[in-house]
């Protein structure tokens, strides 16, 4: 089933120059995945195909040089947003503006060139690396595509980046295969491969979720060091608000394809204006038995994104929901300077 392309009637509007401090601007982004259904069902539904509204009208900006966190539970749409920004997926509606360029308007060739400036790190390094490619080949691949094809130069570039990610001496690792190194080292290889083309933006989708506790701190530290060295901007996608605290400058919380809250980390964590953010923050287990959680958790689990609840998506589980919450969808509004919340009663929570 071809996806509806709603961008065709749009002209490539020039992006105002005043916003060049933004590396990425996401405007009203939507991604609906049609649900597979049988022939008979499609006739009975008269052509109306139900869709999973993975991302449903999301807007935010990522400033140059910051770590922007995107948090939420599984099924909130956070990874889909990451893929849409990299244009690994085409949006159903809305647009992504990368450093002044509207990604929906440029040619595939221009997109290919732009790809060297945006890279990705996924959760599972073993799945991200080809088991039959040596580490040198894996990291050298983007070098050959984007930088140079001369063998000795490729090797030089690869060895440099290997040492930068802490895999030294590089010669020892160059000819190894992914299965011959540890999980933490594998993730370092994936980071090296992402950084070898000197990107501006790195989308890190749960980059440390699979690593062990003692390895996590090392990987986070490495990512932050490399950020300064390479002037990177990170989109840090995570379900773990405790980890996000250590790396993010600003954070956005997603629930069922929509943003609940966006703001600086301190604002969102200390003055969260959305009941869902509050619940998420309280649910994080604290490694200190003197601070056991006493707050009750919201009822139920995250509902299906095919038929999300009307009004505010969170209202069936919300402890402060009132009648209008099931009818009126709350807009994302600026509650305090730079702190946006999508809740009708955010002010009450802040009191």
């Amino acid at each position: 089933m071809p996806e509806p392309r709603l961008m065709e009637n749009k002209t490539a509007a020039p992006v105002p120059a005043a916003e060049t401090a933004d590396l990425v601007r996401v405007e009203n982004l939507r991604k609906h995945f049609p649900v597979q259904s049988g022939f008979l069902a499609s006739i009975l539904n008269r052509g109306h195909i139900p869709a999973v509204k993975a991302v449903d009208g999301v807007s935010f900006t990522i400033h140059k040089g910051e770590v922007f966190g995107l948090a939420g539970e599984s099924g909130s749409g956070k990874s889909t947003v990451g893929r849409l920004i990299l244009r690994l997926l085409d949006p159903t509606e809305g647009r992504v503006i990368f450093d002044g360029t509207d990604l929906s308007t440029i040619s595939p060739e221009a997109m290919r060139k732009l790809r060297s400036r945006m890279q990705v790190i996924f959760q599972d390094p073993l799945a991200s690396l080809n088991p039959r490619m040596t580490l040198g080949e894996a990291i050298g691949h983007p070098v050959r595509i984007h930088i140079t094809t001369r063998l000795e130069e490729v090797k030089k570039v690869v060895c440099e980046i290997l040492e930068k990610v802490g895999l030294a001496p590089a010669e020892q690792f160059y000819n190894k295969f992914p299965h011959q190194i540890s999980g933490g080292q594998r993730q370092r290889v994936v980071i090296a491969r992402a950084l070898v083309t000197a990107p501006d933006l790195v989308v890190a989708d749960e980059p440390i979720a699979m690593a062990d506790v003692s390895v996590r701190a090392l990987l986070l530290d490495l990512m932050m060091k490399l950020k300064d060295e390479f002037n990177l901007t990170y989109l840090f996608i995570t379900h773990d608000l405790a980890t996000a605290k250590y790396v993010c400058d600003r954070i956005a919380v997603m629930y069922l394809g929509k943003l609940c809250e966006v703001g600086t980390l301190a604002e969102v964590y200390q003055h969260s204006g959305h009941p869902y953010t509050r619940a998420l923050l309280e649910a994080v287990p604290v490694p200190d038995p003197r601070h056991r959680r006493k707050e009750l958790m919201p009822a139920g689990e995250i509902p299906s994104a095919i038929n999300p609840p009307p009004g505010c998506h969170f209202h069936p589980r919300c402890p402060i929901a009132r009648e209008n919450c099931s009818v009126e969808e709350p807009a994302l509004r600026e509650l305090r300077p730079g702190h946006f919340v999508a809740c009708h009663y955010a002010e009450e929570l802040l009191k």
Partner: protein
Amino acid sequence: MPDDSLYSVRNLTVEYQTRVGIVKAVDDVSLDIRRGEILGLVGESGCGKSTLGKALMRLHTGPARIANGELWFDGRDLMKLSDREMPDVRGAEIGMIFQDPMTSLNPVQRILDHLTETIQAHEPETSGAAARTRSEELVERLGIRRERLNEYPHQMSGGMRQRVMISLALALRAKLVIADEPTTSLDVIVEAKFLDLLKELQKEFGLTILLITHNIGVVAEVADRVAVMYAAKMAEVGDVNDVFADPKHPYTQGLLKSVPNIRLEEGELYKMEGAPPNLLHPPIGCRFHPRCPFVMDICRTREPAFEPVVGGHLVSCLLYQTANVKQEGLHA
């Protein structure tokens, strides 16, 4: 054996036969699980915590083998039971929950049939109707509406499937539930609710729970005592408040400092250097010595004993045993 101990493991060694040699995944481990407690067993991947959990039910197969040890459960040594006697213990007296409930439940069997089959397998005299009533009451207690018993596992959410797993363990009133990473595949809010449920069940049914997890926060949240494993050995065991407030083993100290804490205002995460050793060739002496910030010469040659430092706080570290070591040195 201490009187209040429901399960006492003594000098347990579990080996895996591999192409390149024998790996001791659990190496001479002793541990007591007290009646009515939640004991958190933590450690990083490969430290042997899951192997230990399975060995408690003698669930090892294939290349794994219990090479040595005693498994004293409720007054008898399970190692002395025959293979035909073990199934009566498994499920009925000791229940087990794994990380991914979807792989533990039969995808083509209704939830109700899982429960009635479990009950009738162990109690053949129970009628189908009685087993059904018991199942209905049980799942309602766990927060699942009784109508949902007619559903298949895929129709339920992850948190609900994990509650079904708990109900299977409780259906036969198991005394001990071994939960191996039960919340790892759950989202934080669902995880928090599942942990609340575990605490309620502990109180209500007097349930004893061995909670195996890599998540230090989960242990801090629910456990009464905590056991820390490193490289197939027990590093430290003690009351959860004692261990978190005053960890004795340098590995525990590093581990606790490297866990992100959402409540702490400031601070950087501690970065523990190095990686756990390859268990084919574990380091001689203390297994943690290559990474230990307080390493002494003797640590490279002598293996520390696992013994009490204060009260019931047991540690396997020569820092607390050097007095004896020095004395022995004098006598020698």
